[in-house]
């Protein structure tokens, strides 16, 4: 048996490569090249306007010994964990409720319920800033009017800014989980529910035995993607608290931005970025591993 050369195989599959080539050219331009460049910069002392010289691992040492980074890293993990799961649960709940509606009504209801996802994240930050504003916002005013108690400063006091950031972010993005779940739930064959119902399964049991197994793959997809996206989220928390009060709600994304554009220390900013990439990529690898298993089902 003669060995087929690489060229032979390339020729055999030319159409696949042809289809993918344009995409990869574009990606190289906007992803791969900048990423490589950014990684290189973490080993220099590049600053605003300065080319920078090679400094080895200095930036990484700086990172490891920086208190604010430690805090931001931890809080980012908490933020990502909180928002991702909240988005997941709210989205699932929304999808389950919507699936109970009749088609026709369902589309309209879901347009309303999912709508926050389609507002610009930037606007999401402004909307919640205004909604939670201690002096002029709706929520503090409502609580005071209804319960007669004064509210804590949602964006400043105690643990509230953390809660507010997580809730606001979840408000904006649960729609993503909701849409995916809704699609998955609609795809579950009715007969399976009917069979379960005939077997005497109640609503909860039907959910556990019929619905849940169909939601495993969507859940993994949502978890991985939202984890990465919540790590990268910048616009909304930046508008909402900007890392404050003080630096109490400093997220990695905001810290990266400030290091780059307020302190003008690009190399350090990129090094911070590397830490973000580590979190995102952990999610990505997890995800890739899972879909790899998944994919084998199609082969």
């Amino acid at each position, binding site marked *: 048996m003669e060995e087929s050369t690489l060229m032979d195989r390339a020729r055999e*599959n030319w*159409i696949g*490569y*042809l*289809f*993918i080539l*344009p*995409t990869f050219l*574009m990606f190289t*331009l*906007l*992803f791969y090249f900048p*990423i490589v460049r950014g990684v290189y910069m973490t080993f220099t002392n590049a600053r605003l306007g300065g080319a920078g010289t090679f400094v080895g691992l200095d930036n990484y040492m700086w990172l490891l010994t920086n208190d604010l980074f430690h805090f931001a890293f931890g809080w980012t993990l908490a933020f990502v964990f909180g928002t991702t799961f909240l988005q997941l649960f709210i989205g699932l709940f929304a999808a389950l*409720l*919507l699936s109970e509606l009749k088609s026709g009504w369902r589309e*309209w*209801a879901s*347009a*309303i*319920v*999912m*709508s*926050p996802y*389609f*507002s*610009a*994240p930037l*606007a999401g930050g*402004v*909307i919640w800033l*205004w*909604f939670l504003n201690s002096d*002029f916002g*709706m929520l503090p*005013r409502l609580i005071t009017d209804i319960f007669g108690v004064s509210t804590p400063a949602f964006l400043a006091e105690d643990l509230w800014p953390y809660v507010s950031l997580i809730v606001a972010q979840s408000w904006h993005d649960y729609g993503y989980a909701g*849409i*995916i779940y809704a*699609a*998955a739930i609609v795809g579950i064959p009715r007969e399976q*529910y*009917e069979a379960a*119902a005939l077997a005497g399964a109640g*609503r909860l049991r039907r959910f556990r035995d019929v619905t849940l197994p169909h939601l495993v793959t969507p859940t993994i*997809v949502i978890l991985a*993607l939202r984890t*990465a996206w919540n*790590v*990268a989220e*910048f*616009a909304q928390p930046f508008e909402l608290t900007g890392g404050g009060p003080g630096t109490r709600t400093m997220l990695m*994304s905001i810290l*990266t931005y400030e290091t*780059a554009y307020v302190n003008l220390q690009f190399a350090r900013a990129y090094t911070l*970025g590397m830490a*973000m*990439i580590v979190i995102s990529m952990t999610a990505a690898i997890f*995800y*890739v591993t899972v*879909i790899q298993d998944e994919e084998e089902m*199609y082969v």
Partner: protein
Amino acid sequence: MINETRRSRLVLYAALGAFALFALAPYYWVIRTSFLTNFAAIDPATNYLPALESLTMAAYEQIWERYNFITFFKNSILVSVTATVISLFFSIPGAYAFARLDFPGRKVLFYTAVFTIMFPWIVITIPVYEVFYLLNLINTLVGVMIALSIFVLPQTIWLLQGFFRQGIPENIEEAALIDGHSELGAFLRIVLPLSAPAVGAAALFAFLTAWNNFLWVFVLTSDEEVRTATVALHYILGSDVLRQWNILMAAVVLLVAPPVVFYGLSQRYVGEGLGGM
């Protein structure tokens, strides 16, 4: 769906109502503010539902006068539509290849593409700016279009490959090959017409993502002439002096309304199959 009772219906509606409230209450406050004068918006004497006579379009009028929103919206529409079209042009074949063709390196390439979906963008703003500068595309609509096309590309590929994987019947291209099509012909004449709903859904998402994109437009432009509505809002927010809540909120309404309404109108047509699985 099974064993409907009146009570469970009521519970369902109540829960959905609560949900709608959670989703819409922040919007309500924004809309209310945008129809008041600046002082009325912060005046505790103004009710939750302001008196009809205190409503005014003043904030919108001022926005229209002060800011070049016609240009911003025109730009937003132009770049979002172009980015959608370009990204579809690239992603349809790309996603198809990932999902249904088998060739050496496919998996590796696919995972590199997935990787771009999850990448924290803020980290690469400056190198990206450099690239666009070298291509002489800074401060041009063309540059923004290209950037947004690529920006939405990963997610479009992702959505479409999911559809191609599961939404297109097995062996259909092979049947077409045997019926006498070339590989390209099978894709163009058989697979593509079947993909219309998925392409529609991907187009919707691409459009919304491009419309809402802040970072790239912000980084790649400084001229007002090429600014999009999203970035314009940021500038209105960011100007040091201006904290006129009514104007701010009117700007938010103008920015948020089109994608939300657009989604509301079109999602029933593209409906399911958005999952990307």
